């Protein structure tokens, strides 16, 4: 019967309770979406492999490295495979059509990234045709590209219009893999540069180094950088994760602000739920005094109030969590270009559940304390 009482008490003031539940739902939804935005920022970091190192110019990523480093890197202990590439920086039709596009050495690059799944026939076709390209499934869907289509990118780093024939559409091994990338042949760009701007030829933006085991990362990275010490282009080698994090760290202040706002939202709703509980309990002070009069102890009263608070916070939290998924989908559709992987993580759901529980428990503390500490006769208002 106590459960029945909790349920009925929770909705005695239907409008107030429903508004509080709705507020809680919106707060949890906002919390989960903001957390998902932060997670999306780190998607590249999460998807990075512990078996890959990235070598770049130690001054900045903007400065290239000679192609000749490739053979030297291959000879270093612990290195299994070396690939290389450049940020191509082209856009499709309009500058607003932003997506990541890289000029890479196809065979070695795709073998280092087994998470990009490509049918063998498409892979072979891509390898064979130097003027071909491969696009991610989401990117192809976005622009309506089909295999065999000619795609013209306008270069920003490598000026001019560049035509590529789409030979493959890859998909990610799982939903943490970015399917919005575009790969083309580094050779094709390099051959053109040899004719047009020879001083820029035979240079790469980065090397991707496959290593035998993650535990060799530090030693191998150190060995690579040592090999090019005092050369005309010194290198900086780090794990792929650290490389990705260096991009994310540029936005660290924004991410910290988003994280902070996500918790502030929860604190605000905590105050709202606590206010609802304080009002409800104050209105029923006489009833709680009757319970005490009948012999009900503090434990029962605390259970009644806590149950009510948890029910309101729990219903709101559940609604917020359920709504997070379609909202995240809609959000991803709207800003998918900026967040290639926008997925509500299990951790976000757990945090949202924990937030709802914490709100339910904390909001009940003051009302419980008031009810428990008031004398029976004061509650009954019967002091003559």
């Amino acid at each position, binding site marked *: *019967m106590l459960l029945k009482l909790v349920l009925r008490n929770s909705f005695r003031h239907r409008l107030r309770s429903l508004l509080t539940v709705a507020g809680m739902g919106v707060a949890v939804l906002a919390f989960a979406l903001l957390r998902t935005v932060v997670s999306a920022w780190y998607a590249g970091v999460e998807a990075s492999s512990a078996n890959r190192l990235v070598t770049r110019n130690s001054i900045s990523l903007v400065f290239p490295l000679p192609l000749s480093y490739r053979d030297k890197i291959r000879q270093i202990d612990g290195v299994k495979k070396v690939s290389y590439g450049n940020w191509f920086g082209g856009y499709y039709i309009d500058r607003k059509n932003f997506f990541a596009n890289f000029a890479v050495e196809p065979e070695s690059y795709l073998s280092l990234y087994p998470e990009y799944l490509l049918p063998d026939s498409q892979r072979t076709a891509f390898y064979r045709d130097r003027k071909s390209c491969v696009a991610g499934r989401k990117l192809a869907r976005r622009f309506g590209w089909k295999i065999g289509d000619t795609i013209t990118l306008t270069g920003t780093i490598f000026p001019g219009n560049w035509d590529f024939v789409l030979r493959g559409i890859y998909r990610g091994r799982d939903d943490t893999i970015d399917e919005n990338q575009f790969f083309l042949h580094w050779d094709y760009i390099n051959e053109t540069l040899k004719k047009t701007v020879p001083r820029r030829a035979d240079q790469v933006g980065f090397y991707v180094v496959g290593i035998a085991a993650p535990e060799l990362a530090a030693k191998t990275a150190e060995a690579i950088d040592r090999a090019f010490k005092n050369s005309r282009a010194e290198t900086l080698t780090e794990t792929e994760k650290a490389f990705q994090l260096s991009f994310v760290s540029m936005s660290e202040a924004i991410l910290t602000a988003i994280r902070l706002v996500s918790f502030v939202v929860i604190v605000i709703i905590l105050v709202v739920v606590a206010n609802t509980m304080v009002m409800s309990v104050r209105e029923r002070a006489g009833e709680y005094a009757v319970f005490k009069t009948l*012999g009900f102890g503090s434990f029962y009263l605390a259970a009644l109030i806590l149950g009510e608070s948890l029910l309101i916070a729990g219903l709101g939290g559940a609604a917020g969590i359920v709504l997070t998924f379609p909202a995240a989908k809609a959000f991803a559709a709207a800003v998918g270009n900026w967040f290639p992987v926008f997925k509500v993580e299990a951790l976000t759901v757990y945090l949202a559940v924990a937030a709802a529980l914490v709100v339910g428990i904390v909001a009940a503390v003051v009302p419980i304390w008031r009810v428990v500490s008031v004398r029976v006769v004061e509650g009954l208002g019967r002091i*003559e």
Partner: protein
Amino acid sequence: MNKKNSSLVQIRNLYKSYRRGNQIIPVLDNIGLDIKEAEFLALMGPSGSGKSTLLNLIAGLDQVDRGTIKIGRVEITSLSETELAEWRASNVGFIFQFYNLIPVLTALENVELPLLLTGLSRKERRRHAALALELVSLQDRMDHHPRQLSGGQQQRVAIARAVVTDPTILVADEPTGDLDRTSAEEVLQLMERLSVDLGKTVIMVTHDPRAAKKARTMRYLDKGVLTDAPEISFTEFL
């Protein structure tokens, strides 16, 4: 020993005061009182005389400043808050002026409420609550919520709730204060029956001389001092 001649409630040298700001207001002054088992006692007096305070102390709802209250073999003035709560649950039934039923529970559930503190099964609790409602002739109103009942019916539900645990004492604070004359009469008759037929000790605080007339004993409290007040005429209150 004759049941009706033994003292169930023994109050000795009882003092109680309240603090209002810096002021200490004495409410009860050296009260001594014996109430026999199965007695129906009316406590009368003007507002502020300390009637309800005395009732609260007898019912174990408040703590005394000095003095003792012994009920049966238990000196309740030496019990802690938790012990008092347990003692109340099994020994005292409460009837309030404004019924104090829980509005979201049905009549049956309201009566069942005190039984939650017993070890009875749900089925047993329901059976006891139904019997108590039958005792107050409300067996056909079990599923009604308090707002669907008249004042008199609500008070009868409150009486059923008070007796459902078979307590030794029933305390009633102005039980007819919010009722019309007919309903008040029904409630008083019921309380009289509980005392006479079921041997319950009923202690009732009232302003209403008609209600007091139903009681077998009447004590008068004025400025915290208890008197027999045999000279009080009921017509004075009318």
